[in-house]
């Protein structure tokens, strides 16, 4: 099996650690295994490049994002506009660079919120029994059944002005969007973590640790949680894509950023009606989202392989 792809980290890691005469550390070991995961390492590079171009891009590409040029509407890629233009003749490269900042930030932050809330709720429910579990699962069920659209409208109505006053227009909207997207995506994570916990907490190694007198917190953090991370990582990587796309639907409710601020999801949505007239419009936005998703997923794969030496070759 191992011969099919690259060498097995679990086989090689041990001799390296031994010969290096360094103190064995699970963290360093994991890092080494992660870096051996070539796709994961490459993905880190890709993400770093994306981030870099988004941060430095505006310095190099100086066309403003909202420069309307009716003479160059729906122009295909050219030297003047490497990514082409949209239906108002606005430069898509500039818009992609600007939008990337928001989309990536929203994607990662919302994923973070969803994972943290999901893991905490799931772990609490999975380790405790009786009323705490029931109450937390009730909360999960409640969130799953809430109709999102009316709730979002209510949230805008109640909190937009407050957050705007508190954090300024952009900051307020950002926090609101991250909280809303994350707040609607933690439930599957919580259910998955709980299910893993229910199974894991009865396993022998947990029993053993418990018998050795490990505290409950230690039991959860050091023993159960790392073994429950598989589905969590998958959920997290899917959530990044979902959050980037969800942001675009939010702006259609007036909850997202102001309509003149482009984000990747928004660009894709605007482009869809022009798919057969100006395919380049959708191509770059869709491609950027896809690239991000692939990178994140390979990193996720690398992480899960790194975290458990026994798994995968």
């Amino acid at each position, binding site marked *: 099996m191992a011969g099919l792809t690259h060498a097995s980290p679990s086989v090689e890691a041990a001799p390296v650690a031994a010969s290096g005469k360094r103190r064995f550390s699970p963290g360093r070991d994991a890092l080494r295994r992660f870096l051996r995961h070539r796709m994961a390492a490459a993905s880190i590079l890709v993400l770093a490049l994306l981030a870099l171009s988004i941060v430095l891009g505006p310095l190099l590409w100086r066309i403003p994002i909202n420069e309307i040029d009716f003479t160059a509407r729906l122009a295909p890629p050219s030297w003047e506009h490497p990514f082409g233009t949209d239906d108002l003749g606005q430069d898509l490269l500039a818009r992609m660079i600007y939008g990337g900042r928001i989309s990536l930030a929203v994607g990662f932050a919302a994923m973070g919120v969803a994972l943290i809330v999901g893991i905490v709720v799931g772990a609490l429910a999975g380790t405790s029994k009786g009323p705490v579990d029931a109450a937390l699962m009730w909360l999960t069920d409640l969130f799953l059944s809430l109709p999102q659209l009316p709730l979002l409208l209510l949230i805008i*109505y109640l909190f937009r002005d407050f957050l705007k006053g508190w954090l300024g227009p952009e900051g307020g909207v950002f926090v609101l969007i991250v909280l809303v997207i994350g707040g609607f995506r933690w439930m599957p994570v919580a259910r998955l973590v709980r299910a893993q916990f229910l199974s894991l907490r009865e396993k022998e190694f947990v029993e053993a640790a418990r018998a050795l007198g490990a505290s409950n917190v230690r039991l959860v953090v050091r023993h159960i949680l790392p073994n429950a991370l598989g589905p969590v990582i998958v959920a997290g990587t899917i959530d990044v894509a979902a959050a980037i796309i969800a942001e675009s639907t939010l702006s259609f409710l007036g909850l997202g950023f*102001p309509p003149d601020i482009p984000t990747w999801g928004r660009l894709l949505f605007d482009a869809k009606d022009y798919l057969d007239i100006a395919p380049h419009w959708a191509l770059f936005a869709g491609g950027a989202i896809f690239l991000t998703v692939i990178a994140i997923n390979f990193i996720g794969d690398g992480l899960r392989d790194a975290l458990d030496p026994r798994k995968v070759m």
Partner: protein
Amino acid sequence: MNERDLRRQIADVKTGRLSRREFVQRMIAVGLTAPMAGAMLAHSGIAVAAEAIPYKPTKAGGGGPLKLLLWQAPTLLNPHFAVGTKDQEACRLFYEPLAGWDKEGNLVPILAAEIPSKENGGLAADGLSVIWKLKPGVKWHDGKPFTADDVVFNWEYANNPETSAVSIGSYKNVKAVEKIDDLTVKLIFPQPTPFWADAFVASFGCIIPKHLFGDYIGAKSREAPANLKPVGTGPYMFVDFKPGDTVAGKRFPDYHVPTQPYFDTVEIKGGGDAVSAARAVLQTGEYDYGYNLQVEDEILTKLEAGGQGKTELTLTGNIEYIGLNVTDPNVEVDGERASLKTKHPLFSDPEVRRAINLLIDRASVQKFIYGRAGVATPNFLNNPERYRSKNNSFEFSIEKANQILDAAGWKKGASGIREKDGKPLKFVFQTSINGPRQKNQAIIKQACQKAGIDVELKSVVASVFFSSDVANPDTYTHFYCDMQMYQTTMPQADPQFFMNQFTSWECATKENKWQGRNVCRWQNKDYDETYKLAQSELDPVKRAALFIKLNDLVVRDNYVLPEINRLNAIGVKNGMVLYKSGWDNDLAFIASWYRAS
């Protein structure tokens, strides 16, 4: 052309020196003519012979199925409850009014034998009553005869507040409806009423049968079984209805026009979005007709290249306009924001308003956003044409705007934003969420930026923006914002209701729970007086002049900035011949639709 010329020409028509057609053509030539030119003649005692609706087939039936696609799905089938256009359209398959409006704004008899006029004795000289003669031999789908009792009943039904009919507005100004004989009814008005063709005409004028709804007048109205299974006099009989999805009908063999309708069955499919509806008609030809294709013209043109169908456009009075807030939305007086007691800190300077008017690139918005489906205009009242003012024009010039602002003392600060007396020239501009509107906002924002004005864009989801929710500050009637843009629809060929939205008593305030129609809260004594005059002026020529004056008063104060007069675009499959008027529902004349072989 002045009033005297007009009168002379009307007299010529009367004596036969000028044909009716020639008269109308001359009116067009001088830009005064109109859909309502007919009404002009009618009031002067000349019978209106509406243009004949083209129809070739010689017998009813044989046309196969007619497939209609509405991207907003009908949800109910009682014309008196028909809130949205989509519902009104669906009702027109089964129900009919006494008369409808044709393309030029003339009345066309449907269930009436003829249109009331001075000549046939239908219109009283004092404007206090109208007599309608009904078409004989009309049958309901269940075989019962249609009579004057049904007409009287519809007035009682709609006029009863307990029924909660949305058509009540068309009937509450009628004091009484009397049956003269089985085929004649008389409408009595409390005061001289120049616009008498509201009750029993067009969509809210559809007649429902007394024998099926008679027991369900008032509070019980919602229990009537016929609400969901309509029985009317229309060209198609009810087959099936799934609210929010489909309406199906089949040909009514006893229809009162013996050679109509051409199609054997009819189906309305609802839902989806406008772009894909356009695709299904223009590009793949799956459907024969697609309603209200509010789609960028560029996409429509591209889809038409598919060769299956084409876009047809009709004139309407609907106007996309930008309103500047007269009051200050950021100051609370007596617990009310944007109170009538305040003045807007920036827009109270008329020079600022003038500059903003110059910064709206109407021509580009027409060319690049609305295309064939919009006409850039400086006027609020654009159609029917005889009400359109010739006195205004528009211009786009960043340079001039800059000069005006410089001269008025608004100096550019360090950030490039103009300011005066410590007040920076920046404001919030809101509209509903809708593709073309967001692009429109972007275009205006950019022009303003170049003139040293900072505009923050805001967009509100349409279901909130257009709601009448008292508690929500984001509705267009609250207008807690500096500038906003939306479309006002003109539902009738007569501007009376349309123009009341700038009268002082219509101001939207906390007191009337923001139900008033004057959303910019613009007040003008002259306007109020003129409007009252127009309300009771029986002479159509003078009345038209009054409405033109009303338009000019609003537009020249630069608080209300008209932008685009929208046209109604529909998709029509090749071979379909359909008559459609911009002053009535699309399906108002569906009985006459046919497919040319």
